[in-house]
Structure formats: C-alpha cells, structure tokens
C-alpha cells in the first residue's frame, strides 16, 4: 500500500492541515509564552514589564492549585469513564433494529445540541436546585431530604452534567464504528459458539478499540479545557471544591484580568495536557494503527 508515489502524495495531502494547524498553534502559543513572563493586567496598562517566573510561581503557591489539578483530572477521568462505558452500551442498544430507530438516535444525540452554558443552567436550576429542582421534588416525593448537589457534591455534579453533554459524542462515534463491523465476522463468531457476551467481548469491543481510543483522546483534550459549566453552576466552589485548572485560569483572565497569569496558567495547562496525553498514548495509543 505504501509506495514511493503514494507517500509523496500523502505528504502533499497532509501539508495543508499541518501548515494551517502549525500557524494556528505556534503564533498564539508564542504570544502566550511571551505574556506569561510579563506583567500584563488589562485594567492597569501603565504597569508592565518582565516578571520572570512570578506568574508561574503564583499558580504553584496558590492554595487551590493542587486541588485544582486533582479536580481537573477527576473531571476528565470521571467523564471519560461514564461516557465511554455508557456510550458503548447505548451504541450497542440503538444499533439493534428497533422501531423508530431514526428518531431514537436523534433523541440520544440531542444533549449535544444544547449549548453548554444553557445545559449547565438547565441542570442547575431545573434539576439540581435544592428547592425548585426536579431531583429535590423527587426526593421529597420519596420523603427524603433533597440532596444539595452543588454544595455537597460539587465535583460529582459537574461530572454528571458534563457527562450528559458528552455522552452523545461518544455514542455517535462508537455507533458509527459499530456500523463498519462486518456482519460475517459476527456470524462466524456465532458459529464458533460465542455467546452474546463473548461476541461483545472478543469481536465487537476489539473492533471498536480504535473508536474508543479516539473518543478518549478527543474528549480528554476537550475536557481538560472545560470551565463554562463550572462557572455557571458552582463558581468553582464551594470554596475551591470544584475549581479546576482552566477555571483558575478563567478567573485570572476574566475576573482579575491578569493576562500574564492567565498565560502562565495556559502554559501549565498545556504541559499538563501533554503529560496526560503522553500517558494516554502509551496506554492506548497502539490501538490507533492496528
């Protein structure tokens, strides 16, 4: 398959993407790196200058930094587990021939259609609110005290909301991958005496590994940058209980208007993301080309 000419063609074919993405990455990255060593506060333009590593140090010295790191990883990990596991199950389910399959699929991907701030707002106010929320009403209906989701379980709540938002993404990619599984392979496995579970375990899941890998990697990158949902629901709190690294950066950039610190936070986030990506690639990356 790979011949000299096709390799040449391949290089030409990837070039536009690579060049565009390189510019898209390099220029802002360079600017961010530059700002990260500068004193740059939007509202105090008269005070500028080089500050060395101060902006970075501010993060490392911040009492919430390590918690934020942990929360970031918890958010990513939690959402990944929920979306991948449920995504596989749902993809399998809606791949079955059932009545109204088209509509059914639309319903399942619908959460993805809702803009994240709206989704967070709906969950916060119409579902998780301790007085007006549907969950509270349900709890009271069962004679229980409403759970104070955002106050007592802020991270879990955020994970829940984000999982709901991203479940359709995982489901759709996994479903599409399922479509390309040749039915003869499944038939062969059936002839080989594999039960439904074993077909899942030995044929379907291995077939989906590449798709699962992609879901994990893409979602990780997205989830590592999430802050909007946190801002809408918990404001990173109570205290710092649900503060993540991007939310810390958000606070510096949007509230404190300290671009230098936000830039330093951005660089730290990029490093964190690279570390996570490195381990992910080591762990699951080999499924990419198999």
């Amino acid at each position, binding site marked *: 398959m790979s011949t000299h000419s096709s390799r040449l063609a391949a290089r030409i074919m990837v070039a536009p993407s690579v060049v565009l993405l390189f510019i898209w990455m390099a220029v802002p990255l360079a600017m961010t790196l530059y700002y990260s060593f500068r004193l740059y506060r939007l509202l105090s333009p008269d005070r500028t200058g080089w500050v060395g590593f101060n902006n970075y140090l501010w993060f490392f010295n911040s009492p919430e930094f390590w918690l934020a790191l942990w929360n970031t990883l918890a958010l990513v990990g939690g959402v990944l587990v929920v979306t991948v596991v449920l995504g596989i199950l749902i993809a399998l389910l809606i791949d079955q021939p059932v009545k109204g399959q088209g509509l059914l699929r639309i319903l399942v991907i619908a959460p993805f259609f809702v803009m994240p701030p709206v989704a967070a707002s709906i969950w916060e106010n119409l579902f998780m609110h301790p007085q007006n929320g549907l969950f509270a009403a349900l709890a009271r209906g069962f004679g229980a005290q409403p759970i104070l989701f955002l106050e007592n379980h802020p991270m879990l709540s955020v994970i829940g909301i984000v999982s709901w938002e991203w479940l359709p993404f995982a489901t759709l990619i996994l479903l599409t991958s399922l479509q390309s599984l040749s039915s*003869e392979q499944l*038939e062969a*496995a*059936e*002839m*080989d*005496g594999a*039960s439904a579970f074993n077909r899942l375990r*030995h044929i379907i899941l291995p077939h989906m590994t590449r798709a699962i890998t992609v879901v994990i990697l893409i979602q990780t990158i997205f989830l590592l940058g999430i802050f909007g949902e946190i801002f809408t629901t918990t404001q990173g709190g109570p205290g710092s209980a649900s503060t993540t690294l991007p939310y810390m950066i958000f606070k510096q950039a949007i509230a404190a208007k300290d671009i230098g610190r936000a830039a330093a936070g951005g660089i730290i986030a990029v490093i964190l993301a690279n570390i996570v990506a490195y381990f992910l690639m080591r762990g699951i990356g080999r499924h990419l080309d198999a």
Partner: protein
Amino acid sequence: MGKITLKHVNKSFGDVAVIPDINLSIEDGEFVVFVGPSGCGKSTLLRLIAGLEDVTSGQIDIDGTDATYLPPAKRGLAMVFQSYALYPHMTVRKNIAFPLKMAGLPEDEQEKKVQNAARILNLTNYLDRRPGQLSGGQRQRVAIGRAIVREPAAFLFDEPLSNLDAALRVTMRQEITELHQSLKTTMIYVTHDQVEAMTMADKIVVLNAGNIEQVGSPLELYHRPANLFVAGFIGSPKMNLIAGAAAQAQGATTIGVRPEHLDITDSGPWRGVVGLTEHLGSDTFLKVTLDSGEALTVRAGGEVALRHGDRIALAPQAGKIHRFDADGKAMA
C-alpha cells in the same frame, strides 16, 4: 448426531426466490457435496442450515428436532465461510483457538489443538501474524483451521480449497477426508472442483437456480445423469451434446458423449477437422468441428501428433452414449 433434514425450504431475498422449494435429507455421518453454477444458491443453502439466514418458509430439522428457529450458536455446527470471515484483530493462533476458548477449553489443550491444526494446514510459521499479513491461501487455511479444531455436529464448508495450490489442495482434500473418516461427522461441502466433488463425496447434490437437479453418488451422476443439466455439469471438460440427425439415429432428441469416451479411429462414424488443441501434458483436448457442424471436445493422450486443421474420424465408445428426450430428461 448430525442428521439434517430440509422440508420444503424456501428462501427469498425480497422478490427474488433464490431457493424456491428444497427437500433434502442428509444422513448422520454422510459427506455431502453441493455443486452447481455460481449464484445457484449453494452458499445460501449452507447459511440456512447454519441458521445465519432465516428460511422464508419450510422447516429444518437437525437430529430429528425442529431447528428452524434455533440460533446458530445452538445448532452446534462449524462453518468455513467462502469469504473466510477471519477476526482481523486476532493473530492466527487466536483465530483458530477462538471456538475452543468459547467452549471453555483449558489453555494448554487449546494450544495443543491449535498446533495440531496448524501443522496439518502448514500454518505453523504464521501463528503470530494477523490476517491482514497473510496471503489469500493462508487466510483460507486459517478459516479451515478454525472449523476443524472443534467437534461439531456437522461441518459446513463453503469452497474451502478454492485459493490453494494443487499440491496443497490434494493434501487438504486428504486431510478432510481423513477427518471425516476418523470423526464420522456429517460434512456438507460446497465446491466447484470436479475432482473434489467426485473423490470426497458420499453424495453429490446438484443445484441449479435453487432447485435440486439430482442427488446421487459421484459415479451415479457421472454414469447416469438424470438430465441434460447434470450431464453437462458433471465431468470436465463437459459432455459433448449432439442434437439433430445423429441423435435421432439413437431415438433421442439429444445424445451426449463425454470427451473421454470418444476414440480417434479412422473407422469412426463422425468425421471432422481439428480446431484448437489444449495440451495439459497428461492429456490433450482437441476441439473437433464435425462436418455436420457440431463442435466436439475429445480427450486424447498426452502426446498426440494432431494439429490444427487435421481431418480425423471419431467413434463413441460402446455403451457410453447418453440419450435425452425433448424435455432434457435422460432416457432409460
């Protein structure tokens, strides 16, 4: 263990009745070969028996019980797919071991059986490769390996040897025959290879457009084809069919003589000119155009001196003439 009965089985894809109505009984331990032109429904029939396809109507019994709606896994059959259907993400070893693993065999026994199958199939060096890294014939062998490691109620083979070279094919043919003899398991085998059909079958089923034309032992079909279709289909090169005066002389609408039953003698009644000659080494096939316009194929020895354009006379061997009536049915 492996008696299979098809009762009024019909299968349609949409409007097209691929199999209009088949009745067939396969005895336990029998080796049955399905032959028929490409697209006549052989694979479909196998898939119906395997349970991979639903019958449109009719009933399939396995071992005397109605299995029409039994799922494939419950029928206890093993199958080699015409398209191989290997598991692309598993190595050859794992592919072959898969049915054993499903049956819950211990690892070491799995390995033993895999090694054994690999040896028979000349796959020992390829056990750690994935299907994508194999040649066509190697893939086919893996597919066979996956079927033969088990002990199913019956084997279903869909053209299992079509991509193998002659030598390996002979070996595999013998292996399968031996497997059959030692296991005494029912085998249903689809092939296009005349030699395989003739040598392996206890019973050959000739299919045409989803209908059974004739069922019988190999030599029965060779010597007493029930109709023109079977006469033309069994035997290679195919039987020469002659209509017209020569046939009427025999009181038939059509007569048939196999290429190997025509002798080249100067005294022969049929005269003509040699056209194309095909030299196989062991034999030579001559195309002879008779003066009456009919074209016949004649099998001659490996070293005949005849050339394009030579005039020769042919004589059918005594008692080797097949006679068919206007409907194409064989006459007694």
